[in-house]
Protein backbone atom coordinates (compact mmCIF):
# COMPACT_ATOMS: atom_id res chain seq x y z
CA UNK A 1 0.00 0.00 0.00
CA UNK A 2 1.11 3.52 -0.71
CA UNK A 3 -0.68 5.13 2.25
CA UNK A 4 -2.18 3.47 5.31
CA UNK A 5 -4.10 5.25 8.06
CA UNK A 6 -4.44 2.86 11.01
CA UNK A 7 -6.99 3.92 13.65
CA UNK A 8 -5.79 7.52 13.51
CA UNK A 9 -7.30 9.99 15.96
CA UNK A 10 -6.51 13.64 16.36
CA UNK A 11 -7.78 16.36 18.70
CA UNK A 12 -7.02 20.08 18.45
CA UNK A 13 -5.74 21.78 21.62
CA UNK A 14 -8.14 22.80 24.37
CA UNK A 15 -10.62 25.35 23.02
CA UNK A 16 -14.31 26.09 22.87
CA UNK A 17 -14.36 24.19 19.58
CA UNK A 18 -12.79 21.16 21.20
CA UNK A 19 -15.25 21.15 24.09
CA UNK A 20 -18.05 21.04 21.55
CA UNK A 21 -16.42 18.23 19.54
CA UNK A 22 -13.49 16.50 21.28
CA UNK A 23 -11.94 14.82 18.22
CA UNK A 24 -11.33 16.35 14.78
CA UNK A 25 -10.69 12.82 13.55
CA UNK A 26 -11.55 9.63 15.37
CA UNK A 27 -10.37 6.07 14.72
CA UNK A 28 -9.84 6.76 11.01
CA UNK A 29 -8.57 3.84 8.93
CA UNK A 30 -8.19 3.84 5.16
CA UNK A 31 -5.67 3.04 2.45
CA UNK A 32 -4.52 4.38 -0.89
CA UNK A 33 -3.06 1.94 -3.41
CA UNK A 34 -0.42 3.01 -5.95
CA UNK A 35 -2.08 4.56 -9.02
CA UNK A 36 -5.42 5.05 -7.29
CA UNK A 37 -7.44 8.27 -7.13
CA UNK A 38 -9.16 8.60 -3.78
CA UNK A 39 -11.55 11.42 -2.96
CA UNK A 40 -12.27 12.67 0.55
CA UNK A 41 -15.67 14.34 0.84
CA UNK A 42 -17.87 15.52 3.68
CA UNK A 43 -19.50 18.57 5.21
CA UNK A 44 -17.61 21.48 6.79
CA UNK A 45 -15.57 20.51 9.88
CA UNK A 46 -15.80 16.82 9.03
CA UNK A 47 -12.00 16.46 9.24
CA UNK A 48 -11.01 16.59 5.55
CA UNK A 49 -8.24 19.18 5.84
CA UNK A 50 -7.10 17.71 9.19
CA UNK A 51 -6.56 14.42 7.35
CA UNK A 52 -4.20 16.13 4.87
CA UNK A 53 -2.36 17.94 7.64
CA UNK A 54 -1.79 14.63 9.42
CA UNK A 55 -0.60 12.94 6.24
CA UNK A 56 1.89 15.76 5.62
CA UNK A 57 3.00 15.90 9.28
CA UNK A 58 1.84 19.45 9.81
CA UNK A 59 -0.05 17.77 12.67
CA UNK A 60 0.84 14.69 14.72
CA UNK A 61 -1.84 12.10 15.48
CA UNK A 62 -2.93 11.67 19.10
CA UNK A 63 -3.35 7.93 18.49
CA UNK A 64 -2.88 5.44 15.66
CA UNK A 65 -0.28 5.36 12.91
CA UNK A 66 0.15 6.66 9.37
CA UNK A 67 2.41 4.71 7.01
CA UNK A 68 3.81 5.73 3.67
CA UNK A 69 5.15 2.92 1.47
CA UNK A 70 5.27 0.76 4.59
CA UNK A 71 7.27 3.19 6.75
CA UNK A 72 5.73 5.18 9.61
CA UNK A 73 5.75 8.81 8.44
CA UNK A 74 7.03 10.06 11.81
CA UNK A 75 10.32 8.32 10.92
CA UNK A 76 10.68 10.27 7.65
CA UNK A 77 12.53 13.57 7.45
CA UNK A 78 10.70 16.58 5.97
CA UNK A 79 12.64 16.24 2.71
CA UNK A 80 11.96 12.45 2.56
CA UNK A 81 8.28 13.21 2.88
CA UNK A 82 8.39 16.03 0.32
CA UNK A 83 10.01 13.67 -2.22
CA UNK A 84 7.09 11.25 -1.80
CA UNK A 85 4.08 13.53 -1.28
CA UNK A 86 3.39 16.66 -3.35
CA UNK A 87 0.70 18.96 -1.97
CA UNK A 88 -1.44 21.56 -3.72
CA UNK A 89 -2.73 23.54 -0.74
CA UNK A 90 -6.15 25.07 -0.39
CA UNK A 91 -6.68 28.69 -1.35
CA UNK A 92 -5.10 31.09 -3.75
CA UNK A 93 -1.34 31.36 -3.92
CA UNK A 94 0.04 34.10 -1.70
CA UNK A 95 1.34 37.15 -3.56
CA UNK A 96 4.85 36.06 -4.39
CA UNK A 97 7.30 38.00 -6.54
CA UNK A 98 8.36 35.08 -8.74
CA UNK A 99 7.55 33.85 -12.22
CA UNK A 100 6.05 30.47 -13.09
CA UNK A 101 9.40 28.85 -13.86
CA UNK A 102 10.85 29.95 -10.49
CA UNK A 103 7.81 28.58 -8.66
CA UNK A 104 8.00 25.18 -10.36
CA UNK A 105 11.75 24.91 -9.71
CA UNK A 106 11.03 25.38 -6.00
CA UNK A 107 9.41 21.95 -6.14
CA UNK A 108 12.89 20.51 -6.71
CA UNK A 109 14.14 21.62 -3.30
CA UNK A 110 13.64 18.25 -1.54
CA UNK A 111 15.77 16.55 -4.22
CA UNK A 112 18.85 18.63 -3.35
CA UNK A 113 18.32 20.79 -0.27
CA UNK A 114 22.04 21.48 0.03
CA UNK A 115 22.35 22.96 -3.47
CA UNK A 116 22.51 26.74 -3.90
CA UNK A 117 21.23 26.60 -7.49
CA UNK A 118 19.19 23.84 -9.13
CA UNK A 119 20.98 21.17 -11.18
CA UNK A 120 20.37 20.48 -14.91
CA UNK A 121 18.36 17.42 -13.80
CA UNK A 122 16.17 19.72 -11.67
CA UNK A 123 15.58 21.96 -14.69
CA UNK A 124 14.63 19.00 -16.89
CA UNK A 125 12.16 17.76 -14.31
CA UNK A 126 10.62 21.22 -13.82
CA UNK A 127 10.26 21.57 -17.59
CA UNK A 128 8.49 18.19 -17.81
CA UNK A 129 6.13 19.23 -15.00
CA UNK A 130 5.29 22.48 -16.82
CA UNK A 131 4.72 20.57 -20.06
CA UNK A 132 2.39 18.11 -18.31
CA UNK A 133 0.28 20.93 -16.88
CA UNK A 134 0.39 23.14 -19.98
CA UNK A 135 2.22 26.09 -18.39
CA UNK A 136 5.54 25.80 -20.20
CA UNK A 137 4.68 28.78 -22.41
CA UNK A 138 3.99 30.81 -19.27
CA UNK A 139 7.33 29.97 -17.61
CA UNK A 140 8.64 33.54 -17.78
CA UNK A 141 5.41 35.23 -16.70
CA UNK A 142 5.08 36.66 -13.17
CA UNK A 143 2.54 34.73 -11.11
CA UNK A 144 0.35 37.80 -10.56
CA UNK A 145 -0.24 38.04 -14.32
CA UNK A 146 -1.91 34.60 -14.51
CA UNK A 147 -5.60 33.73 -14.52
CA UNK A 148 -6.96 31.59 -11.67
CA UNK A 149 -6.81 28.42 -13.77
CA UNK A 150 -3.27 29.10 -14.99
CA UNK A 151 -2.13 29.80 -11.47
CA UNK A 152 -3.64 26.56 -10.16
CA UNK A 153 -1.91 24.63 -12.97
CA UNK A 154 1.38 26.32 -12.05
CA UNK A 155 0.95 25.21 -8.43
CA UNK A 156 0.16 21.66 -9.59
CA UNK A 157 3.31 21.79 -11.77
CA UNK A 158 5.34 22.74 -8.69
CA UNK A 159 3.95 19.71 -6.84
CA UNK A 160 4.69 17.48 -9.88
CA UNK A 161 8.29 18.74 -9.98
CA UNK A 162 8.70 17.07 -6.59
CA UNK A 163 8.20 13.78 -8.52
CA UNK A 164 5.95 12.50 -5.75
CA UNK A 165 4.34 9.08 -5.54
CA UNK A 166 1.21 10.76 -4.19
CA UNK A 167 -0.31 14.06 -5.26
CA UNK A 168 -2.56 15.61 -2.62
CA UNK A 169 -4.98 18.37 -3.61
CA UNK A 170 -7.03 20.33 -1.08
CA UNK A 171 -10.06 21.94 -2.74
CA UNK A 172 -8.25 22.46 -6.05
CA UNK A 173 -11.26 24.03 -7.80
CA UNK A 174 -12.58 26.16 -4.93
CA UNK A 175 -11.83 29.52 -6.54
CA UNK A 176 -12.16 28.52 -10.19
CA UNK A 177 -14.96 29.10 -12.63
CA UNK A 178 -16.58 26.20 -14.50
CA UNK A 179 -14.14 26.15 -17.40
CA UNK A 180 -11.13 25.91 -15.13
CA UNK A 181 -12.83 23.30 -12.95
CA UNK A 182 -13.22 21.09 -16.02
CA UNK A 183 -9.62 21.83 -16.99
CA UNK A 184 -8.26 20.78 -13.58
CA UNK A 185 -10.40 17.61 -13.55
CA UNK A 186 -9.09 16.63 -17.00
CA UNK A 187 -5.52 17.32 -15.91
CA UNK A 188 -5.83 15.09 -12.83
CA UNK A 189 -7.25 12.23 -14.87
CA UNK A 190 -4.46 12.59 -17.43
CA UNK A 191 -1.74 12.62 -14.78
CA UNK A 192 -3.19 9.49 -13.26
CA UNK A 193 -3.57 7.72 -16.61
CA UNK A 194 -0.21 8.69 -18.13
CA UNK A 195 2.02 8.69 -15.05
CA UNK A 196 0.17 6.19 -12.87
CA UNK A 197 0.27 8.81 -10.15
CA UNK A 198 -1.82 8.21 -7.04
CA UNK A 199 -4.01 11.18 -6.14
CA UNK A 200 -5.76 12.15 -2.92
CA UNK A 201 -8.42 14.73 -3.72
CA UNK A 202 -10.14 16.60 -0.91
CA UNK A 203 -13.14 18.50 -2.18
CA UNK A 204 -16.49 19.99 -1.30
CA UNK A 205 -17.45 19.45 -4.91
CA UNK A 206 -19.17 16.05 -4.89
CA UNK A 207 -19.56 16.00 -8.67
CA UNK A 208 -15.86 16.66 -9.25
CA UNK A 209 -15.01 13.87 -6.80
CA UNK A 210 -17.53 11.51 -8.47
CA UNK A 211 -16.14 12.29 -11.90
CA UNK A 212 -12.44 11.98 -11.12
CA UNK A 213 -12.08 9.45 -8.28
CA UNK A 214 -11.90 5.65 -8.24
CA UNK A 215 -12.97 5.54 -4.62
CA UNK A 216 -14.49 7.96 -2.12
CA UNK A 217 -14.14 8.36 1.63
CA UNK A 218 -17.11 10.17 3.15
CA UNK A 219 -16.33 11.80 6.50
CA UNK A 220 -18.86 13.05 9.02
CA UNK A 221 -17.91 14.51 12.40
CA UNK A 222 -14.36 13.20 12.12
CA UNK A 223 -15.46 9.61 11.49
CA UNK A 224 -15.84 7.45 8.38
CA UNK A 225 -19.46 7.55 7.26
CA UNK A 226 -18.87 5.45 4.13
CA UNK A 227 -16.11 4.34 1.78
CA UNK A 228 -16.18 2.70 -1.63
CA UNK A 229 -16.84 3.42 -5.31
CA UNK A 230 -18.58 6.75 -6.09
CA UNK A 231 -21.77 4.86 -7.06
CA UNK A 232 -21.86 3.31 -3.56
CA UNK A 233 -20.90 6.31 -1.44
CA UNK A 234 -23.00 8.89 -3.27
CA UNK A 235 -26.24 7.42 -2.04
CA UNK A 236 -29.20 9.78 -1.74
CA UNK A 237 -30.31 8.88 1.78
CA UNK A 238 -26.74 8.61 3.13
CA UNK A 239 -25.77 12.02 1.74
CA UNK A 240 -29.03 13.58 2.97
CA UNK A 241 -28.35 12.40 6.52
CA UNK A 242 -24.65 13.44 6.48
CA UNK A 243 -25.17 16.86 4.87
CA UNK A 244 -28.55 17.52 6.51
CA UNK A 245 -30.35 18.57 3.33
CA UNK A 246 -32.45 17.01 0.61
CA UNK A 247 -30.73 16.09 -2.63
CA UNK A 248 -31.11 14.00 -5.77
CA UNK A 249 -28.47 11.69 -7.21
CA UNK A 250 -28.64 11.12 -10.99
CA UNK A 251 -26.24 9.54 -13.44
CA UNK A 252 -24.24 11.50 -15.98
CA UNK A 253 -25.28 10.49 -19.51
CA UNK A 254 -21.76 11.04 -20.79
CA UNK A 255 -19.73 9.18 -18.15
CA UNK A 256 -22.34 7.17 -16.24
CA UNK A 257 -20.91 8.62 -13.02
CA UNK A 258 -23.22 9.92 -10.24
CA UNK A 259 -24.30 13.59 -10.29
CA UNK A 260 -25.52 15.15 -7.05
CA UNK A 261 -28.09 17.96 -7.18
CA UNK A 262 -29.51 19.71 -4.11
CA UNK A 263 -33.28 20.24 -4.12
CA UNK A 264 -32.67 23.61 -2.40
CA UNK A 265 -35.03 22.56 0.42
CA UNK A 266 -33.54 22.23 3.90
Amino acid sequence: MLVEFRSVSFAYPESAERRARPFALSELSFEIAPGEIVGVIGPNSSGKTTLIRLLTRLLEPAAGEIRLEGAPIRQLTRTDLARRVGVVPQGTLAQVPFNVGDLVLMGRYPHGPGRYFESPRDRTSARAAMEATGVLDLADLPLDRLSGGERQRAVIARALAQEPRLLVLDEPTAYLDLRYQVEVAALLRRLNRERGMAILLVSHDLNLAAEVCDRLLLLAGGRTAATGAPEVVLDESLLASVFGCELIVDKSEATRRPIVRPTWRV
Partner: protein
Amino acid sequence: MLGVLSAALLLVAAAALFVGSASISPRAVLNAVAGRAAPESVERVVTLSIRLPRIAVAALAGGALAVAGVAFQALTRNPLAEPSVLGVTSGAAFGVVVGQSFGLGPTFLQAAGLTAFAFAGALLAAGAVYLIAAVGRGLSVQTLLLAGVIVGIFFSSAITVVISLLDFNRLGGVIHWLLGNLTPIPPGALGLFALFAVVGFWLVVSHARELNLMALGEETALLLGVGAERLKLTIFVGAALLTASVVAFTGPIGFVGLIVPHALRMLLGSDNRLLVPASLVGGGIFLLLADTVARNVVAPAELSVGVITSLCGAPFFVYLLRTRYRANL
Protein backbone atom coordinates in the same frame (compact mmCIF):
# COMPACT_ATOMS: atom_id res chain seq x y z
CA MET B 1 25.71 41.59 -12.34
CA LEU B 2 27.64 40.79 -9.17
CA GLY B 3 30.85 41.46 -11.12
CA VAL B 4 29.58 44.85 -12.26
CA LEU B 5 28.58 45.77 -8.69
CA SER B 6 31.96 44.63 -7.33
CA ALA B 7 33.75 46.73 -9.95
CA ALA B 8 31.55 49.69 -9.01
CA LEU B 9 32.41 49.19 -5.33
CA LEU B 10 36.13 49.20 -6.10
CA LEU B 11 35.71 52.31 -8.24
CA VAL B 12 33.74 54.18 -5.56
CA ALA B 13 36.21 53.07 -2.86
CA ALA B 14 39.14 54.25 -4.98
CA ALA B 15 37.42 57.58 -5.70
CA ALA B 16 36.63 58.06 -1.98
CA LEU B 17 40.38 57.87 -1.25
CA PHE B 18 40.88 61.10 -3.18
CA VAL B 19 38.04 63.05 -1.56
CA GLY B 20 38.09 64.60 1.92
CA SER B 21 38.21 67.74 4.00
CA ALA B 22 42.05 67.71 4.07
CA SER B 23 43.27 69.22 0.80
CA ILE B 24 45.68 66.61 -0.53
CA SER B 25 46.46 66.42 -4.24
CA PRO B 26 45.62 63.23 -6.18
CA ARG B 27 49.36 62.74 -6.83
CA ALA B 28 50.06 62.85 -3.08
CA VAL B 29 47.32 60.28 -2.45
CA LEU B 30 48.82 58.01 -5.14
CA ASN B 31 52.26 58.42 -3.56
CA ALA B 32 50.85 57.46 -0.17
CA VAL B 33 49.09 54.38 -1.58
CA ALA B 34 52.25 53.34 -3.46
CA GLY B 35 54.31 53.72 -0.25
CA ARG B 36 56.36 56.59 -1.63
CA ALA B 37 55.22 59.16 0.98
CA ALA B 38 57.29 59.90 4.10
CA PRO B 39 56.15 57.81 7.11
CA GLU B 40 54.88 60.75 9.17
CA SER B 41 53.69 62.90 6.26
CA VAL B 42 50.18 64.33 6.29
CA GLU B 43 49.22 62.60 3.02
CA ARG B 44 50.29 59.21 4.32
CA VAL B 45 48.47 59.59 7.66
CA VAL B 46 45.30 60.99 6.05
CA THR B 47 45.20 58.47 3.18
CA LEU B 48 46.23 55.26 4.92
CA SER B 49 45.27 55.83 8.56
CA ILE B 50 42.08 57.87 8.16
CA ARG B 51 40.50 57.52 4.72
CA LEU B 52 41.35 53.88 3.95
CA PRO B 53 40.07 52.40 7.26
CA ARG B 54 37.00 54.60 7.00
CA ILE B 55 36.31 53.29 3.49
CA ALA B 56 36.66 49.72 4.78
CA VAL B 57 34.26 50.43 7.67
CA ALA B 58 31.75 52.06 5.30
CA ALA B 59 31.84 49.15 2.85
CA LEU B 60 31.48 46.58 5.64
CA ALA B 61 28.74 48.43 7.51
CA GLY B 62 26.73 49.18 4.36
CA GLY B 63 26.97 45.58 3.17
CA ALA B 64 26.02 44.20 6.58
CA LEU B 65 23.00 46.50 6.96
CA ALA B 66 21.72 45.78 3.45
CA VAL B 67 22.00 41.99 3.98
CA ALA B 68 20.25 42.35 7.36
CA GLY B 69 17.46 44.22 5.54
CA VAL B 70 17.01 41.45 2.95
CA ALA B 71 17.06 38.86 5.73
CA PHE B 72 14.40 40.61 7.84
CA GLN B 73 12.25 41.20 4.74
CA ALA B 74 12.41 37.52 3.79
CA LEU B 75 11.90 36.33 7.36
CA THR B 76 8.82 38.45 7.97
CA ARG B 77 7.62 38.30 4.33
CA ASN B 78 7.26 42.04 4.71
CA PRO B 79 8.98 44.30 2.17
CA LEU B 80 9.21 47.24 4.56
CA ALA B 81 11.00 45.32 7.32
CA GLU B 82 14.48 46.71 8.01
CA PRO B 83 16.65 46.79 11.16
CA SER B 84 15.93 50.44 12.02
CA VAL B 85 12.23 50.27 11.07
CA LEU B 86 11.83 47.14 13.20
CA GLY B 87 13.46 48.75 16.22
CA VAL B 88 16.33 46.23 16.12
CA THR B 89 18.88 49.00 15.60
CA SER B 90 17.55 50.81 18.69
CA GLY B 91 17.78 47.58 20.69
CA ALA B 92 21.40 47.10 19.60
CA ALA B 93 22.16 50.75 20.36
CA PHE B 94 20.72 50.32 23.85
CA GLY B 95 23.03 47.33 24.32
CA VAL B 96 26.03 49.39 23.21
CA VAL B 97 25.16 52.34 25.47
CA VAL B 98 24.88 49.96 28.41
CA GLY B 99 28.28 48.49 27.42
CA GLN B 100 29.76 51.98 27.13
CA SER B 101 28.42 52.88 30.55
CA PHE B 102 30.58 50.01 31.85
CA GLY B 103 33.57 51.68 30.19
CA LEU B 104 33.88 49.43 27.13
CA GLY B 105 35.66 51.14 24.20
CA PRO B 106 37.16 50.46 20.78
CA THR B 107 40.06 48.14 21.73
CA PHE B 108 39.89 44.57 20.43
CA LEU B 109 38.50 42.83 23.52
CA GLN B 110 36.30 45.72 24.56
CA ALA B 111 34.87 45.94 21.01
CA ALA B 112 34.00 42.24 21.24
CA GLY B 113 32.25 42.97 24.54
CA LEU B 114 30.37 45.91 23.02
CA THR B 115 29.23 43.71 20.12
CA ALA B 116 27.99 41.11 22.60
CA PHE B 117 25.93 43.81 24.36
CA ALA B 118 24.65 45.05 20.97
CA PHE B 119 23.79 41.49 19.91
CA ALA B 120 21.83 40.91 23.12
CA GLY B 121 19.97 44.21 22.61
CA ALA B 122 19.23 43.38 18.95
CA LEU B 123 17.90 39.92 19.84
CA LEU B 124 15.78 41.39 22.62
CA ALA B 125 14.27 44.02 20.31
CA ALA B 126 13.70 41.63 17.38
CA GLY B 127 12.16 39.04 19.71
CA ALA B 128 9.86 41.67 21.23
CA VAL B 129 8.74 42.91 17.79
CA TYR B 130 8.07 39.35 16.65
CA LEU B 131 6.05 38.51 19.76
CA ILE B 132 4.00 41.70 19.56
CA ALA B 133 3.35 41.41 15.82
CA ALA B 134 2.71 37.66 15.73
CA VAL B 135 -0.46 38.00 17.81
CA GLY B 136 -3.29 36.97 15.52
CA ARG B 137 -2.79 35.73 11.99
CA GLY B 138 0.65 36.15 10.43
CA LEU B 139 2.85 39.22 10.35
CA SER B 140 0.86 41.89 8.55
CA VAL B 141 2.56 45.02 7.25
CA GLN B 142 0.87 47.36 9.68
CA THR B 143 1.21 45.31 12.88
CA LEU B 144 4.89 44.67 12.17
CA LEU B 145 5.57 48.36 11.53
CA LEU B 146 3.64 49.40 14.61
CA ALA B 147 5.46 46.85 16.73
CA GLY B 148 8.77 48.16 15.33
CA VAL B 149 7.83 51.73 16.18
CA ILE B 150 6.78 50.77 19.73
CA VAL B 151 9.95 48.77 20.40
CA GLY B 152 12.11 51.50 18.81
CA ILE B 153 10.55 54.17 21.05
CA PHE B 154 10.98 51.97 24.10
CA PHE B 155 14.69 51.39 23.50
CA SER B 156 15.28 55.05 22.54
CA SER B 157 13.78 56.04 25.89
CA ALA B 158 15.89 53.43 27.65
CA ILE B 159 18.99 54.92 25.94
CA THR B 160 18.00 58.37 27.21
CA VAL B 161 17.72 56.98 30.74
CA VAL B 162 21.22 55.44 30.57
CA ILE B 163 22.70 58.62 29.04
CA SER B 164 21.14 60.71 31.81
CA LEU B 165 23.08 58.61 34.30
CA LEU B 166 26.44 58.93 32.44
CA ASP B 167 29.02 61.46 33.64
CA PHE B 168 29.28 64.64 31.60
CA ASN B 169 32.73 63.92 30.07
CA ARG B 170 31.57 60.71 28.41
CA LEU B 171 28.32 62.18 27.13
CA GLY B 172 29.72 63.91 24.03
CA GLY B 173 31.23 60.72 22.61
CA VAL B 174 28.06 58.71 23.08
CA ILE B 175 25.85 61.33 21.43
CA HIS B 176 28.26 61.59 18.47
CA TRP B 177 28.18 57.77 18.17
CA LEU B 178 24.37 57.69 18.41
CA LEU B 179 24.15 59.72 15.18
CA GLY B 180 25.95 56.95 13.30
CA ASN B 181 29.54 57.70 12.42
CA LEU B 182 32.12 55.93 10.30
CA THR B 183 35.17 57.05 12.24
CA PRO B 184 38.25 54.89 11.55
CA ILE B 185 38.58 52.04 14.03
CA PRO B 186 41.81 50.25 15.07
CA PRO B 187 42.93 47.38 12.77
CA GLY B 188 42.22 44.70 15.40
CA ALA B 189 38.67 45.94 15.97
CA LEU B 190 38.18 46.28 12.19
CA GLY B 191 39.16 42.62 11.80
CA LEU B 192 36.67 41.67 14.48
CA PHE B 193 33.95 43.69 12.73
CA ALA B 194 34.76 41.91 9.45
CA LEU B 195 34.60 38.53 11.21
CA PHE B 196 31.14 39.22 12.69
CA ALA B 197 29.91 40.56 9.34
CA VAL B 198 31.20 37.45 7.50
CA VAL B 199 29.53 35.09 10.01
CA GLY B 200 26.23 37.00 9.78
CA PHE B 201 26.41 37.11 5.98
CA TRP B 202 27.17 33.38 5.80
CA LEU B 203 24.22 32.51 8.03
CA VAL B 204 21.92 34.40 5.66
CA VAL B 205 23.40 33.60 2.24
CA SER B 206 23.73 29.86 2.92
CA HIS B 207 19.94 29.74 3.41
CA ALA B 208 19.02 32.03 0.51
CA ARG B 209 17.27 29.23 -1.41
CA GLU B 210 15.13 28.32 1.61
CA LEU B 211 14.23 32.01 2.03
CA ASN B 212 12.79 31.94 -1.51
CA LEU B 213 10.57 29.02 -0.49
CA MET B 214 9.46 30.86 2.65
CA ALA B 215 7.97 33.51 0.33
CA LEU B 216 5.30 30.90 -0.52
CA GLY B 217 4.25 30.83 3.14
CA GLU B 218 5.69 28.93 6.06
CA GLU B 219 3.35 25.97 5.68
CA THR B 220 4.12 25.51 1.98
CA ALA B 221 7.84 25.75 2.75
CA LEU B 222 7.40 22.96 5.32
CA LEU B 223 5.55 20.84 2.74
CA LEU B 224 8.53 21.30 0.40
CA GLY B 225 10.93 20.02 3.04
CA VAL B 226 12.23 23.24 4.62
CA GLY B 227 12.87 23.08 8.38
CA ALA B 228 11.07 26.38 8.87
CA GLU B 229 11.63 26.80 12.61
CA ARG B 230 15.39 26.23 12.38
CA LEU B 231 15.58 28.47 9.31
CA LYS B 232 13.77 31.33 11.07
CA LEU B 233 16.06 31.06 14.08
CA THR B 234 19.20 30.99 11.90
CA ILE B 235 18.15 34.03 9.85
CA PHE B 236 17.00 35.85 12.97
CA VAL B 237 20.42 35.30 14.60
CA GLY B 238 22.30 36.19 11.39
CA ALA B 239 20.38 39.43 10.80
CA ALA B 240 20.65 40.42 14.48
CA LEU B 241 24.41 39.76 14.43
CA LEU B 242 24.87 41.88 11.29
CA THR B 243 22.86 44.74 12.80
CA ALA B 244 24.58 44.45 16.17
CA SER B 245 28.10 44.49 14.74
CA VAL B 246 27.35 47.62 12.66
CA VAL B 247 25.79 49.40 15.62
CA ALA B 248 28.67 48.43 17.92
CA PHE B 249 31.38 49.66 15.53
CA THR B 250 29.70 52.65 13.84
CA GLY B 251 26.51 53.54 15.71
CA PRO B 252 22.92 53.24 14.53
CA ILE B 253 22.64 53.93 10.80
CA GLY B 254 19.13 53.71 9.44
CA PHE B 255 17.38 52.77 6.19
CA VAL B 256 20.34 51.18 4.33
CA GLY B 257 18.53 47.83 4.61
CA LEU B 258 15.46 49.33 2.98
CA ILE B 259 16.92 51.45 0.17
CA VAL B 260 19.56 49.03 -1.14
CA PRO B 261 17.49 45.80 -1.36
CA HIS B 262 14.59 47.63 -3.04
CA ALA B 263 16.87 49.25 -5.61
CA LEU B 264 18.51 45.89 -6.33
CA ARG B 265 15.16 44.08 -6.60
CA MET B 266 14.26 46.44 -9.44
CA LEU B 267 17.45 45.35 -11.24
CA LEU B 268 17.73 41.66 -10.29
CA GLY B 269 14.28 40.46 -9.23
CA SER B 270 13.46 38.83 -5.92
CA ASP B 271 15.63 35.69 -5.96
CA ASN B 272 17.43 35.85 -2.61
CA ARG B 273 20.32 33.79 -4.00
CA LEU B 274 21.25 36.81 -6.13
CA LEU B 275 19.83 39.51 -3.91
CA VAL B 276 21.77 38.63 -0.74
CA PRO B 277 25.30 38.75 -2.25
CA ALA B 278 24.33 41.75 -4.42
CA SER B 279 23.08 43.57 -1.30
CA LEU B 280 26.42 42.97 0.42
CA VAL B 281 28.21 44.78 -2.40
CA GLY B 282 25.42 47.30 -3.13
CA GLY B 283 25.15 48.25 0.55
CA GLY B 284 28.88 48.94 0.59
CA ILE B 285 28.59 51.21 -2.44
CA PHE B 286 25.61 53.10 -1.01
CA LEU B 287 27.15 53.77 2.40
CA LEU B 288 30.49 54.74 0.85
CA LEU B 289 28.71 57.30 -1.32
CA ALA B 290 26.65 58.53 1.64
CA ASP B 291 29.78 58.85 3.77
CA THR B 292 31.67 60.69 1.06
CA VAL B 293 28.78 63.18 0.90
CA ALA B 294 28.72 63.39 4.73
CA ARG B 295 32.47 64.14 4.84
CA ASN B 296 32.41 66.83 2.18
CA VAL B 297 29.04 68.55 1.94
CA VAL B 298 29.70 70.93 4.87
CA ALA B 299 33.55 70.74 4.84
CA PRO B 300 35.60 71.40 6.83
CA ALA B 301 32.91 70.24 9.27
CA GLU B 302 31.39 66.75 8.81
CA LEU B 303 27.88 65.40 8.96
CA SER B 304 27.16 61.99 10.48
CA VAL B 305 26.53 59.38 7.80
CA GLY B 306 23.40 58.29 9.71
CA VAL B 307 21.94 61.73 9.03
CA ILE B 308 22.46 61.31 5.28
CA THR B 309 20.95 57.78 5.17
CA SER B 310 17.95 58.91 7.22
CA LEU B 311 17.43 61.97 5.01
CA CYS B 312 17.38 59.64 1.97
CA GLY B 313 15.60 56.75 3.68
CA ALA B 314 12.65 58.48 5.30
CA PRO B 315 11.24 59.90 2.02
CA PHE B 316 11.99 56.58 0.29
CA PHE B 317 10.04 54.76 2.99
CA VAL B 318 7.08 57.11 2.56
CA TYR B 319 7.27 56.64 -1.22
CA LEU B 320 7.17 52.84 -0.85
CA LEU B 321 4.35 53.04 1.65
CA ARG B 322 2.22 55.30 -0.53
CA THR B 323 2.83 53.58 -3.85
CA ARG B 324 3.86 49.96 -3.85
CA TYR B 325 2.48 48.67 -0.58
CA ARG B 326 -0.59 50.84 -0.12
CA ALA B 327 -2.84 47.87 -0.85
CA ASN B 328 -1.30 45.89 2.02
CA LEU B 329 -2.10 48.46 4.67
